[in-house]
């Protein structure tokens, strides 16, 4: 008995050490990655860098247009994809009754979330530019991203709708509530967390996207307002990062852009979480 329990203790300790190690390596890699980007990149961030555009005549090298383009494209994509995706998810989870068709659709959306973004870029370019006649710009890029992140929003919303207990639905219907009132007052408020998570994932994909946008939004770095940027070649930060490294070999600028990107992502995620908890408490 003594022997066995001693053996077990070693086994238990060993396993625990291994798990600690896994967690430790994960955290260390993340910290290293973030630390490295900030360490090398923050030095390159100056007021001028953030508030001007690149101009050989004035001799400035700034990324303001790219920051704005990134915000434009997030705004445009999310404002289209959120109602569309949440609406589709509500229909699929709460209204649709054909379970065979439903599982096919769910499988299809799941598959779509895993398709490489460059394929969306290619199809987006061919469809929006050659067939619809759009120019390079935020509109073509944004619409392409809508198609790309729609499956993510639909899936995460569906999953969170499914976690709402059936007893809530029965309770609401049992009191004579119609289906839509049940969804609006009992189901959606309890699914907000999952929808916010979906939005954070989606924003992450938009901010990090370069391949699909090179083909559809372009890589322009000239300052435009939202309306003009819709149909003018407009590079986002990720695209600008790619251009800086690939076409100018300017690693210093690329690292500064990377640092800005990480801060923006962080801010948007915080915003989404605050908005989510507000919605939930309402």
């Amino acid at each position, binding site marked *: 008995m003594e022997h066995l329990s001693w053996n077990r203790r070693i086994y238990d300790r060993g396993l625990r050490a291994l798990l600690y190690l896994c967690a430790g390596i994960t955290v260390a890699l993340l910290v290293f990655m973030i630390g490295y980007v900030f360490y090398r990149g923050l030095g390159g961030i100056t007021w001028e860098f953030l508030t001007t555009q690149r101009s050989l005549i004035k001799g400035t090298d700034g990324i303001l247009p790219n920051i704005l383009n990134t915000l434009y494209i997030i705004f445009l994509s999310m404002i289209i994809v959120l109602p569309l995706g949440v609406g589709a998810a509500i229909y699929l989870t709460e209204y649709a*009754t054909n*379970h065979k068709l439903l599982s096919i659709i769910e499988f299809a959306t799941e598959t779509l979330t895993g398709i490489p973004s460059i394929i969306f870029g290619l199809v987006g370019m061919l469809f929006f530019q050659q067939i619809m006649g759009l120019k390079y710009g935020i509109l073509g890029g944004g619409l392409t991203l809508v198609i790309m992140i729609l499956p993510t929003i639909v899936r995460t919303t569906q999953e969170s709708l499914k976690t709402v*207990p059936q*007893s*809530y*639905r*029965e*309770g*609401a*219907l*049992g*009191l*004579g*509530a*119609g289906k839509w*009132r049940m969804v609006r*007052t*009992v189901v959606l*408020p*309890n699914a907000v967390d999952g929808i916010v998570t979906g939005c954070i994932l989606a924003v992450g994909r938009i901010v990090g996207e370069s391949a699909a946008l090179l083909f559809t939004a372009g890589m322009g770095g000239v300052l435009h307002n939202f309306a003009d940027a819709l149909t003018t070649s407009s590079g986002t930060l990720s695209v600008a990062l790619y251009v800086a490294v690939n076409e100018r070999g300017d690693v210093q600028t690329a690292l500064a852009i990377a640092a800005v990107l990480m801060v923006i992502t962080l801010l948007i995620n915080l915003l989404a979480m605050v908005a989510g908890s507000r919605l939930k408490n309402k």
Partner: protein
Amino acid sequence: MNAILKTEHLNLWYGQNHALKDINLEMPQNQVTALIGPSGCGKSTFLKTLDRMNDLVPSVRIEGKVMYRDQNIFDPQVDVTWLRRHVGMVFQKPNPFPMSIYDNIAYGPRTHGIRGKKQLDEIVEKSLQGAAIWDEVKDRLKKSALSLSGGQQQRICIARAMAVEPDVLLMDEATSALDPISTSKIEDLIAELKKTYTIVIVTHNMQQATRVSDRCAFFLHGELVEADDTEKLFSVPKDKRTEDYITGRFG
């Protein structure tokens, strides 16, 4: 005997499974009708049919009639929300919404268009008093209903059902998830409620059926074996199967 709810040749199938077989049962006004029988006998299915909660189940098929105040509830022109407003349901597990106690009770009235704060305040107080829980929660109406104990939550659910002023209250084993003290509180409440409502309960517990019900219906394998005054059914059952069940020979 004035039957407010009445079924006529009610048959129900889940896919191929014939779950209710030709049920004819009358549920008289201001009385408690208890549905008893072993698990899987169809008593819960029967109860859910009375306010069409079975509509949610795919592949369900129903024949026959359920008459609520001389209106067949399966008539295409009957609005389900109208029916459920008049035939309320209390579920087996307490299922308050994750909202404040006040909002839980006000949910039904708001659903049916009552918006005035004063009117809602009155309904909330009246319903909570009716469900014998007003004194326990009156100081914390804004607190989440989920913070209450199971027995309190179930009385909140009863109050919530009462707030839409139904005619009939259906209770699906409403005490089976509760401790004995909460159970006896709810049993006392049922005795009080039948002055205003017609009540139909499903119960596994035969003592409970004898304590709270006026009429009793015994279900077995989807059939209604026997229905009678509770006292008669438990003292001189007509059918051998009823006798076997109530004396504990099976089930």
